[in-house]
């Protein structure tokens, strides 16, 4: 077990193993997202209250899931980096941050678009929308902090600390926003409670969520590989690799 972790910590080993894993995740992502979208958009029955507009759920919910999971993954990577000084963990955290911010933005944007037919407005100070907006700011803070340092090591450690502080605060923020919202809840705009989703509606949703996760893993592997090459550019094995590929191209 420990040997495995130490191996995983070596950028060279990670570069090799991720090359083998990557295609599987890309394939799974493509298959699941195509299946889920086709099923969700074309074959799932329309909602009896919201009609076809409910189909935004097939983008909105997976994006919202990812937005929260990526922050946790980022904080865990930060912890691993701080405790065991495993550089690959920090590289992964660095490439996850923009992706997480993008997913948060997608969740917010799709929520706003969904708001037009259901609430009649682009933005509502709904509890979930508000905590998503705060999550977006947390992501932007982590990205900005990492960019502000000139020394890469300080940037990595500062971003790790901030990600961990953020992840402790996310549940606190979430519950306080929920409390705040129940105190201020405007009566006229609530989503009327819907019956539990029928199977043919939520099954494509599950497929989409799995597809989004596969996409996230595949993209993180790919971008971590580029990050490894960039940071380890002066290492012998990277130079050998590049020279080998240049020879092949000739």
């Amino acid at each position, binding site marked *: 077990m420990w040997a495995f972790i130490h191996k995983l910590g070596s950028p060279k080993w990670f570069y090799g193993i991720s090359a083998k894993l990557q295609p599987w995740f890309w394939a799974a992502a493509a298959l699941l997202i195509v299946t889920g979208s086709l099923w969700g958009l074309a074959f799932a029955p329309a909602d009896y209250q919201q009609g076809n507009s409910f189909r935004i759920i097939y983008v909105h919910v997976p994006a919202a899931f990812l937005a929260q999971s990526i922050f946790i993954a980022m904080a865990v990577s930060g912890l691993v980096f*701080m405790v065991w000084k495993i550089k690959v963990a920090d590289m992964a955290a660095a490439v996850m941050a923009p992706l997480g911010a993008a997913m948060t933005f997608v969740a917010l944007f799709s929520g706003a678009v969904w708001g037009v037919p259901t609430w009649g407005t682009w933005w509502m100070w709904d509890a979930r929308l508000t905590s998503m907006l*705060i999550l977006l*700011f*947390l992501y*932007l*803070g982590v990205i*900005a*902090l990492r960019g*502000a*340092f000139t*020394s890469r*090591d*300080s*940037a990595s*450690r*500062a971003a790790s*600390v*901030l990600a*961990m*502080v*953020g992840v*402790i*605060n996310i549940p*606190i*923020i979430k519950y*306080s*926003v929920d*409390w*705040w919202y129940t*105190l201020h809840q405007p009566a006229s705009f609530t989503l009327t409670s819907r019956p539990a989703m029928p199977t043919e509606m939520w099954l494509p949703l599950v497929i989409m969520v799995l597809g989004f996760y596969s996409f996230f893993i595949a993209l993180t592997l790919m971008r971590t590989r580029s990050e490894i090459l960039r940071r380890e550019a002066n290492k012998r094995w990277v130079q050998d690799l590049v020279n080998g590929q240049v020879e092949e191209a000739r």
Partner: protein
Amino acid sequence: MHSSSQSSETNQQVLAVPLREHKGGLMTAVKATLMRDLTLMLRRRGEVLNPLVFFALVITLFPIAISPDPELLAVIAPGLLWVAALLAALLSLDSLFRSDYDDGSLEQLLLAPQPLVALSLAKVAVHWLLTGLPLALMAPILGIILALPAGSYAVLALSLALGTASLSLIGAIGAALTVGLARGGVLLSLLVLPLYIPVLIFGAGAVQAAILGDGVSAHLAILGALLAASLMLAPWAIAASLRISING
């Protein structure tokens, strides 16, 4: 444990001149840090007064921008007072570690044999004593000019006193992370403001509840819980962040 470390220290003294001596324990160092920061801050009166003037100025802007109507102001006063106090506390954060960083005394704090966690907690305590507490005491006066309904003044001061302590602790993490950066000011607010939201919700909520005549103890209890949690966790993050800023 302590005696063994002392004896090894004396052994070293025989061999070479020690870099530092273990004079006094944790409490002495904490007290020294408290006294030093208090003295320094009280000699720079401007830094203590500026957040208060800023607080008063921002509160003056709102009636001018929105409406001088007392009824309207009374409705929004709790939120305005809390947001303005939060921003004033935020403005004062940048100077928390800045001058110590510039003159090198922060490095001495890191090198001290006493744990940095305790010493940074002492620094934050002084910061709260000279910004958070004055802001809390001043808020009722500004409440009068915003036509804050009677019966909520004590709750306003109490919620601000409790809340700004959490704000100082959370904000110090951001200040410690950005102290090594040349222009950390805007970045500091970007990092810290999202983390301030729970305190803002329950702080403004307490004043709102006092106006409506609801019980305020739930809000104040949660503010206290937030303070307890940040007292417990924030000093570790502050110490780690200071180490990153100094060594990096």
